[in-house]
């Protein structure tokens, strides 16, 4: 056994607190260590070449690299071994940066810890077994969850590469949040004008299958072979027959009496509806909670919509369907929710009609909105408008992060007010204006130049909105009170309410803020920790449209890769069952979350499906007979690692 140990200085990241020279000297004496060296950047080309040369010259059979987190460079170094013909699993990585040099200051102690960690790794390395990478074939289809701009973009890009895509959207139409916006900053393009063609493209694309009014309710399998359960809710309208003429909605007894969610309840619709005129697909949907027929079984003598529909598209007998889709990869683009300002009662939202949110304002000024684009509050055009930024953002009590878009949309909205009501008086309460994107600063300057007043307030300073006849009084520390006609709250972007549930269904992680967690914040921003599932748009973190679209394109590329390859490598780390030792108690069967363990009723032993097994090891640690070996984390390896770390000669 010949082990090579390589200690990385990582510039000075490691070297400034770990005496790498001493480390190298000490570990040189460990059993089986044939060579130990240090180098400035082990992951660099020369660093890798150094290892390769040693493997060849010294015939090393195990390699230990002490550098950064294995979550960062383990694949890099495994490749080094592979390129020299050594099994990549003969590699062990020691984390002496994130978990040593960066977190300890005393040089002596960090050096000691580094030696202990490396000793553990060396001890473990001599028990490493070669593992064969497993390949599975990939179903050349993808699933995109969420039909907002990110989802649409991702779906289109994958479809363009020639793969079938299912685009699942829970609401009756795709389009998402962007469809609700009026104009986009900083270019002031009409949101609907740039989005609608994309929606149409998606609907028309031969490779895209739209599954609107549908939700993902279950996921099984693994990269390349996911089995997705999609619940298709009944529209009570035959999509094949419906042409979107709207006669039904016009006939509905409840016409104009139901608040329209798309307009944030500011407009009204019928019980049979499309959320907005440009909806895709343009198919009507009956709201089961409102429709008289569906609620009472009877709607007058005859349901008027049925009568109105010339194509007999309405079908009250439609049932919920569960579709099973087989896909190879998944893009999650489920978007975001907006902060509910009721959580901050001091702003008076919900109490006074004069206080609205930014998105409500978007509907208000939208030409297709409930007021046809006319800004009015209590039936009057507001003269004095106050914008308050950072509502539910950058706030330790609610959401600590910056939502990234509020500064700019507030500027845009202020500009829109100025454009529509030139005489209006506008005040924006801000803390910092973050105008970091392309054209942002310019836009901000332009808006300021329009006579809009920016008033700074510290984040901690309270703003209070109280009633003053049919106006509201905005009281702010350090500024004179404003008697406003309209207050627009720049509410922040928050994770969707159901993201916890979805994270469980998909088995992906959430970060502390509740957004889905990317595999690496810098280098793998589109990946999740579950192979084959990628992230796009605001479900990962707040973004503006171009960022969401860019990430969607990126996620699409990542998701299309395995589809194009046709096969994919899956985790080689899996459980193996020694049939001679297995007692057939089937305890592990219940433990496995992936149904990877199956009972062979003939031989009366358990068997493990390598591909299904994710390598968690829960079965191995519960197996009463010790028949289950967890590859790469077997008992022997862990025992040796404990031994190495605690070796008295080293611990002292």
């Amino acid at each position, binding site marked *: 056994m010949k082990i090579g140990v390589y200690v990385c200085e990582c510039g000075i990241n490691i070297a400034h607190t770990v005496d790498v020279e001493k480390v190298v000297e000490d570990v040189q004496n460990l059993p089986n260590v044939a060579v130990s060296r240090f180098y400035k950047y082990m992951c660099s080309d020369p660093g890798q070449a150094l290892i390769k040369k040693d493997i060849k010259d010294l015939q090393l059979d195990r390699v230990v690299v002490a550098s950064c987190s294995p979550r960062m460079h383990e694949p890099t170094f495994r490749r080094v071994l592979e390129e020299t013909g050594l099994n990549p699993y003969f590699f062990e990585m020691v984390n002496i940066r994130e978990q040593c040099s960066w977190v300890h200051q005393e040089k002596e102690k960090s050096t000691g810890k580094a030696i202990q960690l490396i000793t553990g790794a060396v001890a473990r390395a001599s028990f490493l077994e070669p593992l064969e990478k497993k390949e599975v074939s990939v179903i050349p289809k993808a699933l995109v969850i969420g039909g907002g701009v990110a989802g649409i973009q991702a779906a289109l890009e994958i479809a363009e590469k020639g793969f079938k895509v299912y685009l699942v959207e829970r609401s009756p139409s795709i389009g998402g949040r962007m469809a609700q916006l009026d104009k986009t900053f900083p270019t002031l393009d009409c949101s609907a004008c740039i989005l609608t063609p994309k929606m149409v493209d998606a609907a028309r694309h031969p490779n895209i299958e739209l599954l609107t009014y549908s939700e993902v309710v279950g996921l099984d399998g693994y990269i390349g072979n996911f089995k997705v359960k999609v619940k298709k809710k009944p529209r009570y309208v035959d999509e094949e027959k419906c042409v979107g003429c709207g006669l039904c909605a016009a006939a509905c007894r409840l016409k104009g009496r139901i608040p329209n969610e798309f307009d944030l309840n500011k407009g009204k619709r019928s019980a049979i509806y499309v959320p907005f005129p440009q909806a895709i697909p343009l198919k009507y949907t009956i709201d089961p909670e409102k429709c008289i027929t569906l609620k009472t079984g009877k709607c007058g003598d005859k349901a008027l919509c049925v009568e109105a529909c010339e194509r007999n598209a309405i079908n009250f007998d439609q049932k919920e369907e569960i579709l099973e889709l087989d896909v190879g990869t998944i893009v999650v683009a489920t978007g975001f929710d907006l902060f509910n300002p009721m959580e901050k009662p001091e702003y008076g939202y919900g109490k006074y009609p004069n206080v609205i949110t930014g998105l409500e304002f978007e509907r208000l000024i939208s030409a297709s909105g409930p007021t046809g684009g006319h800004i009015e509050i209590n039936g009057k055009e507001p003269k004095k408008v106050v914008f308050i930024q950072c509502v539910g953002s950058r706030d330790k009590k609610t959401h600590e992060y910056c939502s990234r878009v509020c500064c700019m949309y507030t500027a845009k909205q202020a500009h829109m007010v100025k454009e529509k009501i030139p005489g209006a008086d506008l005040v924006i309460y801000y803390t910092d204006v973050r105008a970091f994107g392309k054209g942002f600063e310019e836009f901000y300057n332009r808006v300021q130049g329009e006579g809009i007043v920016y008033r700074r307030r510290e984040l901690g300073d309270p703003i209070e909105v109280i009633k003053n006849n049919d106006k509201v009084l905005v009281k702010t520390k350090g500024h004179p009170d404003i008697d406003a006609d309209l207050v627009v709250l720049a509410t922040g972007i928050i994770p969707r309410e159901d993201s916890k549930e979805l994270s469980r269904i998909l088995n992906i992680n959430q970060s502390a803020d509740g957004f889905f967690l990317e595999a690496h914040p810098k280098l793998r921003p589109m990946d999740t920790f579950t192979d084959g599932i990628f992230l796009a748009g605001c479900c990962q973190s707040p973004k503006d449209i171009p960022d969401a679209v860019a990430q969607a394109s990126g996620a699409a590329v990542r998701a299309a890769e395995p589809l194009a390859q046709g096969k994919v490598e899956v985790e080689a780390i899996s459980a193996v069952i020694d049939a*001679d*030792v*297995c*007692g*057939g*108690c*089937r*305890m*592990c069967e*219940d*433990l496995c979350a992936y149904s990877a363990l199956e009972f062979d009723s003939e031989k009366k032993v358990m068997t493990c499906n390598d591909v299904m097994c994710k390598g968690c090891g829960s079965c191995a640690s*519960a197996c*009463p*007979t*010790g*028949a289950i070996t967890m590859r790469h984390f*077997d*008992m*022997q390896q862990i*025992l*040796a690692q404990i031994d190495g770390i605690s070796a008295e000669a080293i611990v002292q």
Partner: protein
Amino acid sequence: MVNEKQLRDEVKKLVSRDDVKYVIGYEQGTYGFQVTPSFAFTPEEAERFIFSPLCANNLSVYLMLEEKPPLRKGEKEDTRKVGLVVKGCDARAVVQILQEKGLKRESLVIIGVPCTGVIDPKKITVKFPHQIKPVDVREEGNHYVLTINGKNQKIPKDELLFEKCKQCEYPTPVIHDVLLGDEVKSTKKEEYKEIKTLEKKALKEKWEFWSKAFDRCIRCYACRNVCPLCYCKECIVDQLSPQWIYRSVNRSENTVWNLIRAYHLAGRCSGCGECERACPMNIPLTMLNKKIEKDIKELFQYVAGVNLEEKPLLAMFKPNDTEDTIL
């Protein structure tokens, strides 16, 4: 207590059946108060069967102990049933084995004996250390009547009973095909008095108590071999690579062996106390097993060996399992 004639008749009936291989019961041992396991293949052999308050052994251990040498060419597997005499606690071990699918229910014929407690041989030999000839022991109310050298001796049950029997919650076998005699209802609740007393002691005292006990351990593994639920094909202490527990007999390894043994029975131990009875070094092993039994009752509301459909304790969870000590 059971009518022995009834027992023998039942066993004779069983062994006469074509689908029964043999029946495991008790017979008179070779000296004094000894009772020994007995295997009846024929009705004649069933004549030896007895049942008395001395029948302490948990015979279900033999269910998993039967060695089946590889079949020769043309040889068919013997799938005949095995009959077994069980007391309350023994039956729980049977349930546990069945639950763990170690055996099929169809492969057993269970003769249940409602149990009013058995005598701890250690307690009785202290009282009669030189008894060589077999002794007839009967139960009369709260007393045992021993006929020694023609003379009757009355001894209060409490003085001779196994501690485990004093708080037995399942005196009537929870599983059986035949039940001999009337059901015995338990009015007792396991109180874990001894366990609770020890729990409350200072760490140092506890360690003193146990290290002294474990120091005596000679690692003969009688505790393991006598346990009906220790039936792994290869026990962890016998494994060489990796070798978790060294074969050296010293305090560290002995402690670990005893802890692992107890832990391995978490949620499986039926509380028959055979480990402690078999231990030649008088290590209070049931105090370890009972401790875990108590904990899992309190923490997870789990009782081993009473329900055939139950899933293994450590193969499942409740989302609201205890979080008390988690940082």
